[in-house]
């Protein structure tokens, strides 16, 4: 049974339908890449999974149980953490406070302390800046904070929305290395990316969204050789 299953999910913003009934599966332990051009509906898909949006119809199953229509705070408690587009850093909080909000759902103090230590070990730059206002961090540091904060909820499924957006190539490589490491440590990941090359290199499966519908889905090796993907996203004529 997949950890996450979307069946015929339709999502509307007012009168506009942004997702026209999509099906998508994420198996336990995988990194699944969700690719697509601007406005294809990638963020909408993640927002629907995390409960920020309610589907107009269709089902979202997490661990086999329907979660569509639940409020976001219930969905986090079930084990899905969403790092939103634009990172959603609390800029007027310190780095440490941001991490504390990430652990908001948990009451096991010892477990939180251990996870916080693990996150700080994974992102040493955050440790140096614990008392600093998060708004003063660089873009890359903010992305690391956003991911670290999400990990403090101890999610089974991590939703990442364009973690490489606007970052220098060297930082992007670091972020991708961390994504692989988080996955290797046991967290399943649904990754939205415009950086198709790196996303397909990290992923074990990939979906391509085109204006609100899944245009194709396959193993990364196949997607990379498909003419459709090459033309549209890999800049190959």
């Amino acid at each position, binding site marked *: 049974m997949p950890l996450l299953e979307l069946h015929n999910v339709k999502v509307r913003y007012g009168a506009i339908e942004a997702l026209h009934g999509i099906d998508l599966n994420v198996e336990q332990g995988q990194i699944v890449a969700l690719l697509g051009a601007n406005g294809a509906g990638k963020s909408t898909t993640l927002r629907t999974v*995390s409960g920020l949006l309610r589907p107009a119809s269709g089902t979202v199953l997490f661990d086999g149980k329907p979660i569509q229509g639940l409020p*976001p705070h219930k969905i986090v408690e079930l084990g899905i953490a969403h790092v*939103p587009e*634009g990172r959603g850093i609390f800029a007027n909080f310190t780095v440490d406070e941001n991490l504390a909000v990430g652990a908001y759902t948990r009451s096991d103090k010892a477990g939180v302390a251990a996870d916080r230590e693990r996150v700080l070990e994974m992102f040493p730059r955050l440790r140096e800046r614990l008392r600093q206002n998060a708004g003063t961090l660089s873009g890359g540091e903010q992305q690391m904070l956003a991911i670290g904060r999400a990990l403090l909820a101890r999610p089974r499924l991590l939703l990442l929305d364009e973690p490489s957006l606007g970052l220098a190539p060297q930082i992007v490589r670091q972020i991708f290395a961390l994504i692989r490491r988080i996955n290797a440590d046991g967290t399943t990941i649904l990754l939205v990316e415009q950086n198709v090359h790196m996303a397909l290199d990290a992923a074990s499966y990939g979906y391509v969204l085109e204006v609100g519908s899944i245009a194709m889905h396959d193993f990364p090796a196949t997607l990379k050789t498909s003419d459709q993907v090459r033309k549209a996203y890999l800049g190959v004529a």
Partner: protein
Amino acid sequence: MDGLSVGSLYALIALGYTMVYGVLQFINFAHGDIVMIGAWLSFWICARLGWAGNDAPPSLARAAATLLFAMVVCGTLGFLIERLAYRPLRSAPRLNILITAIGMSLLLENVGQLPIVFGTENQGMPGLLPKETLLSVAGVNITLIDVLIIGCSIALMAGLNHLVYSTRLGLAMRAASFDTKTASLMGVNINRTISLAFVIGAMLAAAAGFLYAVKYTNLNQPAFPTWILLGLTAFVAAVVGGIGNIRGAMIGGVLIGLLEKFGTAYVSSSFKEVYVFSILILVLLFKPTGILGSARVEKV
């Protein structure tokens, strides 16, 4: 001293405006009316319990019980107003909820005027606290009532400050106030946080209403303009301090109270409102986000 005690009342009321604005970016126009209801409930319960007669002796215990009663009832009222009137409109256009708030304000005033509620007569608040002057320094009288008002306000604000800045719940409230969506992704129950802002805001407003009644003793009828002006002045205090900022509301309230009293004492008492609104204009001109306010980044 008088300025300080009036200022702390403004601060208590301003906190309610600012907390609700923080989570909803919405001015709760009915908030000022909760102050009136808090004051009138204090009178009502005293009258009911036979504490209202002129011969009733001052009693700190009775005063505390009255205060508690007003805070609990108003807290419940604040909860219900949000739940029944505002929450259904959460996703409607902003104007709808503003109009509803104005309607709610009129409703509270009119219901307050009903004969079976508070009626349309002015009433005298019983002297729950002794009218003692503790000290007289250079013509300034320091009364026991002023000291108690300031002490009570400080205690309430210190409690709120602790809640908001040193507890998990406070962290959730501040997160929700900065960015509701992201806070919800962190597991913060947004509806509960909004309810909490209304309940705490209404309880503080009730406390202000009670203290106001004890200080001025003459209770104007529920729809009288003094109540509206009281709410409005506190709103100005919230804006001056930086709307959405809790410490700003405290500072703004005290500042406005002092300014109003100094202006009245040293310039002229007929321009009380002029001072208040001039400082509003000055602050808006030079620091539009208020003394402690920070520019809110508009989310695209």
